[in-house]
C-alpha cells in the first residue's frame, strides 16, 4: 500500500484524537511509523493499524475504515484539487474513477494498485457499483464515496447489496446521491 494512505491516516487520527493516540496505535500495531509518500508498505501494516484503532476507539474495523475513507477525502481534495474540480458532482466523479482518476493516481504513485469498478445505472437514478479486490476494502470505497459527496456538498447513501465479507463473490453497492 502506498505511503500516502498511511500519511493521510495519521493526519486523520491526529486531527480527531491527537498525536498521542497515533503513537499508541503504532505501538499496538508493532509499527515504527516510518511512512513516506514516496514508499510502499505491506498491506498488513494497514490491517494491524485498523485493528489497533478498532480496539482503541471501540469501533468495528469496517467502521474504522469507512470513517477513515470519508475523512481522507477532503485531504485528498486539498492535495490534488484538479481531480475534483473537473467534475460538478459526486456521480460523474465516481464514474470517472476507472478511466481518469485511477490512471492519474497511477501516474502520481508509480505501482499504485487501484481497484476497477463496474457501474450500472438503476432505475430511479441510483448507481450500482461493483467491486472485486483481494483487499476487500469495500468499506474504504464506501467512505470515499461519502467523503466525495461531502466535498460536493451532497449526501450519498451507500447500501451494500452484496459483500465479499459476507461470502459473496464480489461487493455490490447501491449509491444514491441527494
Amino acid at each position, binding site marked *: 500500500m502506498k505511503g500516502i494512505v498511511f500519511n493521510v491516516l495519521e493526519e486523520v487520527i491526529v486531527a480527531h484524537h491527537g498525536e*498521542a*493516540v497515533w*503513537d*499508541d496505535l503504532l505501538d499496538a500495531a508493532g509499527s515504527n511509523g516510518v511512512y*513516506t*509518500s*514516496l514508499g510502499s508498505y505491506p498491506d498488513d501494516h494497514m490491517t494491524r493499524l485498523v485493528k489497533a484503532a478498532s480496539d482503541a476507539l471501540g469501533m468495528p474495523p469496517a467502521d474504522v475504515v469507512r470513517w477513515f475513507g470519508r475523512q481522507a477525502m477532503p485531504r485528498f481534495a486539498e492535495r490534488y484539487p484538479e481531480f475534483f474540480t*473537473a467534475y460538478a458532482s459526486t456521480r460523474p466523479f465516481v464514474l470517472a474513477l476507472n*478511466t*481518469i482518476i485511477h*490512471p492519474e493516481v497511477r*501516474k*502520481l504513485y*508509480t505501482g499504485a494498485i487501484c481497484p476497477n469498478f463496474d457501474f450500472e445505472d438503476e432505475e430511479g437514478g441510483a448507481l450500482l457499483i461493483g467491486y472485486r479486490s483481494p483487499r476487500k476494502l469495500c468499506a474504504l470505497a464506501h467512505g470515499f464515496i461519502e467523503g466525495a459527496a461531502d466535498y460536493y456538498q451532497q449526501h450519498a447513501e451507500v447500501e451494500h447489496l452484496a459483500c465479499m465479507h459476507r461470502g459473496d463473490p464480489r461487493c455490490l453497492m447501491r449509491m444514491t446521491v441527494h
Partner: protein
Amino acid sequence: MSEPIECCDPDELARIKRRLERERAARREAETVSERGLRRLYAREQELLLLQDIATAANLSQSVRDVFQYALTRICDFLAWPLGHVYEVVSGDGEARLRSMTLWYARDDAAGAFRDATKLREFAPGEGLPGQTFTSGKPKWLTGVPDREDFLRRSEARECRISTACAFAVQVGEEVVAVFEFFSERALQPNRSLLALLPQVGIHLGRAIERQRAEDRLIHDASHDPLTGLPNRALFLERLNQLMAHARRKADAQFAVLFIDLDRFKIVNDSLGHLAGDRLITQVAGRLRGALRREDVVTRPDATTPGSSTLARLGGDEFTILLTDIHDPSDAVRVANRVKDALRQPFAVNGQEVYTSASIGIASSASGYESADAILRDADLAMYRAKALGKARWELFDREMHQAAMTRLALETDLRRALQNEEFVLHYQPIVSLRTGQVAGFEALVRWQKPDGELVPPGGFIETMEDTGLIVFLGVWVLREACRAARMLQESLPGAQDLSISVNVSPRQFAQPDLAAQIRTVIEEVGIDPHRLRLEITESAMIGDMDRVAAVLRELKEIGVRVSIDDFGTGYSSLSYLHSLPLDVLKIDRSFVSAMAHNGESLQIVRTIMSLAHNLGMDVIAEGPEDAEQVSQLRSIGCEYGQGFYFSKPIDLTAAMAFLARAQNSSEALC
C-alpha cells in the same frame, strides 16, 4: 493514552514540538519535490514508451491501416480519450483534400452522430481542424470545440458532448500524408509535453507510408516499362494468363492480342541516336494510348459491357495490346487500323520530323489457345508476316504464317553462321560505256554460297539480314572484298587503272553514324583510289532526315567517293532530293529499260529521267539491257552506260578478269 512528560519544562516542550513540526514540514516538502520529479519521470517514460510502441508498429506492420489503427488505439489509451480518427490526403485532379480513412477508435461506440458527420465530409487545406493541421503541419489543440466558428462539425460535437480536440499530421519529409484527430468530452487545457511528442509520432507513422510507397514503387517498377510507364511483358502476360483462365470458364468471351512493331525504328535509332529513339517510343506510346482511349474502339453494338484493353511495351519498338470482350477478330482489325492511323502523322524528334509506321500481327482467341505464350507467339509471327508483306499493315495469324515464320527463323540462324564462316562470295557485273563500248567498271554483287554448294542470290537473304542488322557486318565485308577485287582488276591490265567498282550500301548500313569513317578505313587499308569507288544507295535509304543524309553524302564526297542512286524510279523518285543532294550517278531501274522497246511511255520516262540527270550534272547507267536493240536505243537517247545481260551476267573475279582481257584485246567494241 500516555501521560505528558513531566521531566521537561513547558518551554522546552513547546520548542521540541516546534522542531518536530519543522521536521514534519521539511519531510512533506521533500516528498512533494520528489513526487513532482517522479511524476515527470513517469510521464516522460510513458511518452517514450508510446513513441517506441508506435515506432515498432510502424516498422513491423505490413499495412498502413494496421499501423494507423494501432496508433489510434494506443494514443487514445495513453490520453484516456474516448475518440480518435484518421484522414488520408487524397489529391485527385488539382487540390489536395482530407478524406476519412474510416479508421476509428471509439470507446463504447462513442459519438455516433459526430462520426457520421466526419465520414460524410472532406476537408480542403486550411478548412476546419484537419485542414488547418494539414496546412501548418503542426499539432493543434482546441478547447471549447462546440463554440468554435472554425470547428466545422461543432453542432455534432455539441450533440455528442465533445469539448476538447487535438490533431497532428503524419509526415513524409515535408509532405503531410495523413491527419490524426482525437476528442474528449472533458475540458482540458493544452498538454504541452504531448504537443511536443505528437510530431515525432507523426514522423514514425510517416515511415509506414514511406515504406508502403517504396513497396508500391518496386511492384510498379517491376511490372512497368520505365520509359513509357506502360505495363511490361511480365504484367502483360500476367493479365493475359488471368484472362485466359477466366475465358475458359466463360466460353463466349473472346479476346485478341495485337503485336505491334515499328517499321524503320532501328534506322531512326541508328541514325538519330538512342535518345531520339527513346523519344520516338515515348510519343508512339502516347498515340497508342490515345487510339485506345477512344470509347468506341471495341465496343460491339450488342455488348452489355464495353471492351477494355491493355497496352504494353514488351521492349525495344515492340508493343502489345490485349483486347477483351470482343465480338470477332474484325474488332481487333479495327483497332489495328486505328493504330496505323494514329502513327500516320510525323513525329517531332529533336526538332525533326520523323515518320514511322507499324507492322501489326493479330492473334485471336477464336483460334483456341491453351497458353498466353502461344497466343503472344502467334501474334508476333503474324507481325513478321505483316513486315514481310510490305510493312505498315496488319496480318492475322494462321497456320501457314506459322510455317513461314519457322522457316524465317531457321534462315536467320543460318545467316549468322554464314557470316561467321564467311560463306559469302562476290560476283561482278561489268558496266559498259555505251559511247566507247569499253568496260567502265564493275558492280560487286553478293551471293551466299551455302555449305551444300547452293548459290543463293541476294533476294533470298538480304531482307532478313537487313531486319536483323546482320547487314551491317556483311556490308563491311562486301566493301573490303570489292575494293580488293577492284585493285586486282585495275592492276591486271595496263589501261585498266580507271575501272570503277560499285558497291551497294543498305539502308541500315547507310544509317550507321560512322559510315564515312568505315569507308575511309577500308579505302586506306586496301589502297584503292577513292574516286574509283562508287557507293550505290537506294532511294528508300535516303528518305528521312534530309540534313543528315546531305551531311553523310558531303562527307563521302570529301573522301572522294562517288555516290550512285540505285533503282531510280521504283521508290519515291523525289525530285527535291535529287536536286539538293550531291549525287554523281543515277541508275535507271531495269523495269523501265525492259519495257522501253514496246512501250512508248516507258521510253518517255527513261528519256525524262535522263535529261533530268544530265541537267543535274549526273551520269546515267541503264540497268538490265538484254539485247542489241535496247542498247542502241539507249545509246541513241544519250545514255552513257549500260549494265545488263547483253554484256554479261554477274561473274566471279576470275571470269571478270578474263572478260576484261577479252574486251581490251578485242578490236571491236562491246557494243
